């Protein structure tokens, strides 16, 4: 026994330390800030005032303010270019435009029969609206296909062989009120179901985030649907799962929670509604906050920048291989966003690679897109109902996550 004393003692210490570090990583929760539900409304007010003053300045000389491809006067980058609604667009883009409900200026022309400002039932299994997103303003019929099979660009995605079929099952829903308009549509491509929520808001303050249990901390998790229900979200997707990372900027609703820079690019959503992917080495979290960043996510990578795909065919998150469930967020136009969640890891849906996801969002007309936490975390909740098919480990149920992005 004396000969083996060292071996026994060292083995015990090694096992004990391994168990401790495993518990610390996966089980033990640490609350860094309880009741982390603050919303920095001053940032929104300041952004609105800046926007109004910029508008007043532009009203004197008759300038064409429809081209939003450059930066605006206060240095904040515009979130995206004008929507690609030309006649020469691909059928996918035309379909996306048709599925996008009009902005608030056209709301009065909607003949869907819905009352303006009405709110649908929020419980699961709530009935769908009669209006189908294929309607254009002023057109009463709903003949547009709402569930379309899309093929990718064969020249660039050599590995992604397009399988094109059509389905007129009409799986689309909409929510609309005076400040928020959400149109949910399902797509099928390459054996994967993709859930797309087209969102138009009157102000960036309606694009919010929330922590699990309203608490900022490590290993504090809750399902996306529960967090969404707690915050009365119309639409919610999982966030960047900041809780499993020890670094990476965390700015939520205009409040800075973590200023340690990570390795991944940061998605910045500004108070004026614009969106930009930022390298964390170029600016500190405090600087971003002072620039008016409303939300900051650290996961990545950025999928699309200025309308161009920003990932290579073999780009992956960490060491993940191609087909996985994905969650992504993008901006099409001013205050016009798109949330994309794809299924995967199941017999019905293979999943998407990052390039396939970027290619799909490019065809939706997205100008800036960013990848959020995928895999088992990918969840989309619309009007209180989980609309995708989460795959978490061996169970087909929601994975608990640390934060969500929601509209409400």
């Amino acid at each position, binding site marked *: 026994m004396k*000969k083996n004393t*060292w*071996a026994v003692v*060292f*083995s015990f210490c*090694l096992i004990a*330390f*391994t168990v*401790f*570090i*495993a518990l*610390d*990583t*996966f089980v033990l929760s640490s609350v860094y800030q309880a009741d982390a539900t603050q919303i920095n409304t001053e940032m929104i007010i300041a952004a609105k005032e800046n926007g109004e003053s910029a508008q007043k300045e532009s009203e004197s000389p008759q300038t064409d303010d429809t081209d939003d491809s450059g930066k605006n006067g206060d240095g904040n980058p515009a979130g995206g270019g004008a929507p690609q609604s030309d006649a020469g667009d691909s059928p996918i883009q035309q379909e996306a435009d048709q599925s996008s409900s009009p902005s608030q200026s056209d709301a009065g022309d909607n003949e869907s029969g819905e009352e303006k400002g009405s709110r649908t039932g929020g419980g699961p299994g709530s009935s769908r609206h009669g209006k189908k997103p294929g309607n254009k303003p002023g057109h009463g019929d709903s003949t547009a296909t709402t569930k379309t099979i899309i093929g990718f660009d064969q020249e660039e995605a050599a590995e992604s062989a397009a399988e094109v079929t059509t389905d007129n099952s009409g799986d689309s829903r909409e929510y609309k009120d005076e400040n928020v308009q959400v149109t949910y549509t399902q797509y099928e491509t390459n054996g994967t179901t993709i859930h797309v929520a087209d969102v138009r808001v009157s102000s960036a303050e309606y694009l919010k985030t929330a922590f699990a249990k309203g608490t900022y901390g490590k290993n504090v998790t809750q399902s996306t649907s529960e967090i969404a229900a707690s915050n009365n979200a119309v639409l919610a997707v999982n966030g960047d*799962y900041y809780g*499993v*990372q*020890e*670094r990476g900027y965390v700015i939520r609703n205009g409040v800075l929670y973590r200023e340690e820079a990570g390795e991944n690019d940061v998605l910045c959503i500004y108070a004026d509604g614009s969106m930009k992917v930022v390298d964390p080495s170029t600016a500190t979290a405090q600087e971003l906050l002072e620039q008016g960043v409303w939300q900051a996510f650290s996961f990545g990578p950025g999928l699309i920048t200025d309308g161009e795909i920003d990932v290579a065919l073999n780009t992956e*998150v*960490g*060491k*993940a*291989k*191609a*087909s*996985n469930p994905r969650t992504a967020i993008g901006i099409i136009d001013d205050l016009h966003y798109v949330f994309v969640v794809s299924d995967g*890891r199941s017999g019905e849906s293979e999943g998407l690679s990052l390039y396939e996801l970027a290619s799909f969002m490019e065809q939706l007309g997205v100008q800036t897109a960013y990848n959020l*936490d995928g*895999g088992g975390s990918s969840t989309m909740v619309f009007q209180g109902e989980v609309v995708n098919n989460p795959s978490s480990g061996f169970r087909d149920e929601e994975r608990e996550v640390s934060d969500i992005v929601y509209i409400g």
Partner: protein
Amino acid sequence: MFTSDRKKAVEYAYKLFNYACICLTAAIFCALFGAVYEVFSHGVFSFYMIYAFAIPLCLGTFPLMIILLCAGRKTEKLEIIDLKEAETLYEEDRYWENSCLYLFPGRTALNAWFSGIAALTAGCLFQGVLEIYGTTNRLIVVYPVAGVVLLAAGLAAFVIPAIAARRMYRRSRGLYPQ
């Protein structure tokens, strides 16, 4: 060397051979663990998990086999030493080990070396788990630090006395090192 010494040398060589086999078994286990873990990780992989088997293999099995090969040849060429002449200086085990210190690592060196291998291997596997899960933990740095320190200690515990013993042994020219 006396017959008993040669017998002890052979026994010690077998012990080292057993250690080499244990390291080889650990390497096979790490390889299988990594392969099985990757099957259930939905295609997510980690190089730490994949190549964790290389640590016990390259730091355990291979060096021990090299020592056995080299020591085996040298043991046969050792001069016979009068044990009684040196019993006032060393205990029997230490005497025997000292006479072959530059051939075989001692118990202290082996304990430290294998502990370093264990720490590095455990750290490599756990880092692979973290990478596949997509998270990090600052405490993971303890593994490589402890592993390197223990490996260095084991190497020092082998090399320094071995060099000293080799010098003394050569100086004695057949007598037990004084």
